């Protein structure tokens, strides 16, 4: 079956899995084009969370009673689903966190504590603030230096510059796999190989990649990979940190507390094995169970079919938007996901956002937590329409009509 026919066959059916898509906003049929902020949740995810909370609520790893054992089994089954989804070697390499931001902070603190003054971390000019600020804080704490790979006018990384920035003092390359503001898909395999040829580990911020492109941590040979459940059709407040065991074993715990210990005495506390070592406190059990259901859902639709459908939306959207006079696309990389960042001549993105909202169209307007990137492109903000596989070409048509209407209003 070709990718195109997969999409045509499935999209109307798929939309029924997301009840929110049949609702209205401001009295208009909702057109949800803010998937980069958070993806919608299919019924099966909500039902899994609900089933747990209504019929199975219990703590994990602690009780000897029936409910606790059941919750623990469900919780650990989700970990296995995550492992298999990104093809990690072992479940112990899957750490549940509060989200992408929490995962990066964990690495910045724990792996960061092994680094010393004068060491260097490389990030890029297209990072989300969550892959900038934790490193700046580490640099401040321990006297490290942050190096930044520049971005070209199309919104692609300058790989030659990256090669020049890596040196004897580099201790980590932390790079976004897919840019949330531009949609750029970075050449992650190439970056990882390059860094590894200098014995430098790589952290991938896969927040925007995980729901759109297949990620295999063994094929990529990546050292750390972080993402958020809520951008993978799962609940908010939850994320995953994948770490290579050799690294995780060497790293000290980040948060201390219950569940992350082997034994505690006032004289000496010893820590639990992976992954518990990095999972202090009662986790987001319902969320983890929901994430498991989200992964089942994605596997059911198929990530390849998802990517193909989104690619078709990307090409259609690119063509339609490029025909609008006075619209400048921010992010025109050769390889990108269905994220459209744009500005209109003489119309502020916030006005675009509010006016599209009045048409029932949800987009995001602002700096998208990428202020240095906005500076790079000389704009204070952009409007961003980000599409997922459940979006349709006719929703892109609605977007285009609404943009033309905004332009007429401001003419």
């Amino acid at each position, binding site marked *: 079956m070709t990718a195109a026919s997969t999409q045509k066959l499935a999209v109307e059916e798929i939309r029924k899995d997301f009840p929110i898509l049949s609702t209205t906003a401001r009295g208009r049929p909702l057109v949800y084009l803010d998937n980069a902020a958070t993806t919608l949740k299919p019924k099966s995810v909500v039902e899994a969370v609900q089933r747990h909370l209504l019929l199975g609520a219990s703590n994990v790893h602690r009780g000897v009673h029936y409910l606790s054992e059941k919750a623990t089994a469900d919780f650990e089954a989700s970990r296995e689903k995550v492992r298999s989804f990104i093809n990690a070697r072992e479940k112990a390499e899957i750490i549940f966190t509060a989200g992408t931001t929490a995962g990066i902070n964990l690495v910045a603190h724990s792996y960061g504590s092994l680094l010393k003054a004068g060491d260097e971390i490389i990030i890029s000019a297209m990072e989300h603030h969550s892959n900038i600020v934790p490193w700046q804080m580490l640099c401040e704490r321990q006297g490290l230096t942050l190096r930044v790979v520049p971005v070209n006018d199309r919104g692609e990384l300058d790989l030659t510059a990256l090669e020049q920035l890596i040196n004897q003092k580099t201790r980590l390359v932390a790079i976004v796999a897919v840019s949330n503001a531009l949609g750029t898909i970075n050449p992650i395999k190439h970056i990882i190989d390059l860094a590894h040829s200098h014995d430098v580990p790589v952290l991938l911020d896969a927040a925007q990649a995980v729901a759109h492109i297949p990620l295999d941590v063994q094929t990529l040979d990546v050292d750390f990979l972080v993402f958020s459940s809520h951008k993978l059709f799962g609940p908010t407040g939850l994320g995953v940190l994948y770490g290579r065991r050799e690294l995780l074993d060497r790293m000290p715990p980040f948060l201390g507390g219950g569940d992350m210990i082997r034994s505690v005495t006032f004289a000496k506390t010893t820590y639990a094995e992976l992954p518990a070592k990095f999972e202090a406190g009662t986790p987001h059990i319902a969320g983890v169970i929901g994430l498991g259901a989200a992964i089942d859902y994605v596997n059911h639709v198929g990530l390849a079919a998802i990517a193909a459908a989104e690619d078709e939306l990307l090409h259609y959207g690119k063509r339609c938007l490029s025909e609008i006079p006075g619209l400048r696309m921010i992010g025109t990389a050769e390889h990108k996901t269905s994220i459209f960042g744009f500005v209109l001549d003489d*119309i*502020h*993105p*916030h*006005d675009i956002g*509010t006016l599209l909202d009045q048409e029932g169209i949800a987009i995001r307007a602002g*700096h998208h937590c990428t202020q240095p990137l*906005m500076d790079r492109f000389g704009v*204070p903000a952009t409007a961003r329409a980000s599409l997922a596989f459940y979006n349709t070409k006719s929703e892109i048509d609605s977007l285009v009509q609404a943009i033309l209407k905004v332009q007429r209003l*401001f003419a």
Partner: protein
Amino acid sequence: MTSQVDLYQQVILDHNKKPRNFKKLESHTHAAEGFNPLCGDHLWVYLQIAKSPDGADVIHEAAFEGSGCAICKASASMMTMALKGQSPGTAKTLFSEFQSLLKGELNPDTEAHSLGKLKIFSGIWQYPARVKCAALAWHALNGALSNQQTVSTE
């Protein structure tokens, strides 16, 4: 259907396109910069305050410059028009009335106020994300009157 008010009325679009008193006032006696880090709206408000023949302070000139969204620019433009000829005390009253208007705490049709045309911004409280846009110039005004040079709406 919706009870949403139309934010982008003609008056606002017109002030956005042709902002009044949109210049740097070289002869200013008071000035402040306003910045909204969330959306990048950034402007400067200038006042020229002098004594009138009866010895009271009067705002002779008010102007602004900078960049922002239509709501921000229109609000700033209309503010400068409303300020001319007013005393600093009246300007402060306008500031607090406008604040109440933006929060939806003042109903301009049933309660007394001196906002005049500025009441067009009533209803913006229905768009919480945009209230700051309309408020920015006014915060800068308040900063200028209080001799505070930079204000941020964060």
